[in-house]
């Protein structure tokens, strides 16, 4: 194996692996401090997330959301943009999906309604990203700041819309009425049942296929189209992009639209797949979780699938921990997430010198 290859293995696989393990080790130490046996906790967590049908279903259902937001962060990252606005884009994207699923002619076929409702999510997610993108590209406002602010705006906007516009007359809670049935994405357990296999009920629905489709699409787009090339070029070097006839300003706007659109797909899993109505804070935590997923997955769709699965395990297993152990609350998931961000993001290259020295030393001949 050439040294370059070894280095890419170290960067692509070993580093994230070591970083995640360190994060888990740190979690284990925290468990010791709060008087929980880390081994037992790990057992509960893993069994809860993977040990039985229902748990696995929940894990994959959570993972689906993380795939969408992880891809969103990754696409922006390749253009050199740090999109912190996944949270808001997912929220507003959900509104787009809901508007289609609420108001489209109920007699229409699911084959038309579902793609339209998905497009609604894509479109509204993109629209929510376009203003920060424009401000970054043409006015120089930093996208990190504006996307964070847009998360708050999205939150207020959705409360207003749900309370004042979409809430059904006489209803107390701020949520919309039910989506038309044609917009419902089938549950995986129902699909299996129709083929004669019986598995436990879980919220896992066919949006997981949409997530896999978009993972492949993002991979193809970034590395196998000229537009992906332009985005990556602009992300690495503004000057080289301009030199190549690529307009970095356009790249910012277009990339953020794609990024926002991907985040906007969270709604199809949560709303079209499970709840069949629009409600407050359905997006909670997935936008920010997507940052950790993208960091851990090294902004590559394959890495993101793996990282999203891991986060699904943490979410589902964390819920089990909360249920099983008295002195653990669900917030432990947030702690673990924080540690993963710390070790995969902040301390990304912690082990690099040592790994390089042992596995890919510079040779005399090179």
């Amino acid at each position, binding site marked *: 194996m050439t040294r370059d290859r070894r280095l890419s293995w170290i960067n692509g696989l070993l580093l994230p692996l070591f970083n995640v393990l360190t994060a888990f080790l740190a979690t284990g130490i925290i468990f010791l401090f709060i008087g929980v046996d880390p081994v037992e906790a790990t057992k509960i967590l893993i069994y809860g997330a993977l040990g039985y049908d229902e748990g696995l279903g929940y894990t994959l259902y959570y993972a689906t959301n993380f795939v969408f937001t992880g891809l969103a962060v990754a696409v922006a990252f390749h253009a050199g943009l740090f999109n912190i606005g996944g949270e808001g884009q997912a929220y507003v994207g959900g509104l787009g999906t809901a508007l289609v699923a609420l108001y489209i002619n109920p007699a229409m076929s699911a084959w038309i309604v579902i793609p339209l409702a998905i497009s609604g999510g894509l479109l509204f997610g993109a629209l929510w990203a376009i203003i920060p993108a424009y401000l970054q590209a043409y006015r120089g406002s930093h996208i990190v700041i504006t996307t964070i602010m847009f998360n708050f705006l999205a939150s207020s906007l959705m409360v207003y819309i749900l309370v004042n516009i979409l809430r059904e007359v006489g209803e107390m809670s701020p949520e919309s009425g039910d989506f038309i049935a044609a917009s419902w994405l089938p549950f995986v357990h129902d699909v299996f049942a129709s083929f004669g296999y019986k598995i436990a009920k879980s919220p896992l629905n066919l949006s997981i296929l949409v997530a896999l489709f978009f993972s492949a699409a993002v991979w193809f787009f970034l590395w196998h189209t000229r537009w992906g090339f332009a985005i990556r*070029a602009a992300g690495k070097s503004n000057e080289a992009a301009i030199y190549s*006839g690529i307009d970095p300003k356009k790249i910012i706007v277009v990339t953020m639209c794609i990024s926002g659109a991907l985040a906007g797909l969270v709604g199809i899993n949560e709303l079209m797949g499970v709840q069949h109505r629009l409600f407050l804070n359905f997006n909670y935590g997935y936008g920010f979780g997507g940052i950790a997923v993208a960091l851990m997955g090294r902004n590559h769709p394959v890495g993101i699938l793996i990282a999203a699965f891991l986060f699904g395990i943490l979410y589902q297993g964390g819920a089990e921990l909360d249920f099983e152990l008295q002195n653990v609350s669900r917030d432990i998931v947030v702690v673990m997430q924080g540690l993963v961000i710390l070790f995969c993001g902040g301390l990304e290259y912690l082990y690099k010198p040592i790994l390089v020295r042992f596995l890919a030393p510079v040779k005399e001949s090179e």
Partner: protein
Amino acid sequence: MAKSNIAIELINVDKHFGAVHANDKVNLSVQSGTIHGIVGENGAGKSTLMSILYGFYQADSGQIKVFDKDFRATSSRQSIEAGIGMVHQHFMLVDNFTVLENVILGSEGGAFITKSLANARIELTRLAKEYGLEVELDIAVEELSVGMQQRVEILKGLYKGAKVLILDEPTGVLTPQESDELFRIFEALKNQGVTIILITHKLREIMNITDHVSVMRAGKMVAHRETSKTNPEELAELMIGRKVLLNIKKSKAKSGKALLTAKNLKIHNEQGLKRVSGVSFEARSGEILGIAGVTGNGQGSLLKALTGILPLSQGSIEIMGETISPKHPFNPKQLRELGVAHVPEDRQKMGMIAEFSASETALLGYHNDKEINQGVWLKRSSVKANCESLMEAFDVRPNDPNLMSSNFSGGNQQKLILAREFERDPEVLIIGQPTRGVDIGAIEFIRKRIIEMRDAGKAIILISVELEEIMSLSDRIIVMCDGEITGMVDAKDANEATLGMMMANALQPQNEQQGVEL
């Protein structure tokens, strides 16, 4: 202090970076009160050696003596104490501090600097008189010319008690006249007993100014010579280990019709500062038009405007029948489609993307081409094949399209960029600093290729800060100073002295007014 007359002695100094043998048992002895030149190609180990002397790096093994005392610096402070001062290629000055403030930086001597400022003023006045280094002390450094800033650096070293001054490529940013002034200062310093170590790759300077010269190649010290007993040809041969053709032979230009005509260009840079004011010229087919000038006199902005990166504020450019004007701008993509190739000045930032593979760097500017795209699909196999053929045409080594661009040597990166731009058969070539940071072997190759393009009837505009390069390649030469054309001469009538005068805009007006037709 000095019992013997050896200021600095290096015995078997060895330094590895990983497995790169940067300094291989280097021996050097520098006599006190002399000017000692060290020459070598980029990457020969000169800078590493000097950084060891200045305490940035520590040698793996070997012995260093400074004025007969054993010396092992772990920080620049120790080097300063031992009497070594260094003037870096890129000045280490705080732009908005005054000269005086800059000089005491690092030796403030307490919480309040009033006293040390007063002391420094007295001391600096003395030094300035003694060495002929007059600089206004209360002016902000950013207001000074580059040559003057360099003086401040030298003063800084002397103020800190340097007996040995190391200068790394000091003339890279100077006009020939400023360089001569610098050399005059060297003589004055030498007469006062200061030892000077001059690191350079310009053989002319070595021959003119030094007493001794040491040659480095691939980490080894390969020769020591008394300057009076050697010649540039011998030094060049020692530097690269074989005979080189420093002057490329070329036939007389067969210049044809004008392919690019610039009329009264005014250009503002990215920061909105006026960089070019009222420049007109034309580039004809079968001819190389050289644009000379000290860095930062508008050539860079001109090059960017000619290639569509900067907009014109005024004037027009006619290229291949199209007219570019402030109201009718062209972007880099459109210009490429017209047949204008661009080799940028800044190879690292603009010409390539360090983290991209060679095959992707070879695609910059041409990623929309039909040959590599099939519908939405950018065909990886075609991208690779494209890179392979470019690598073969320009002998890029290693010829591996998957290797990261940053893993190629400067010369090979530049060859890949030239291949990318030359192999599409453009009509107009705009080339900036084609051989900056490139080893001598590759320089020869690149220059030959540029002349081949000329002989194939292309119009070539060459921008370079290396006068030697401008003079050996160009058929006509324009000199720019402060955004204006200060001279236009036929290459056969050009010499370094007149070009230098033009670069400093010191010629009489009648010479400036000789228009395009010279």
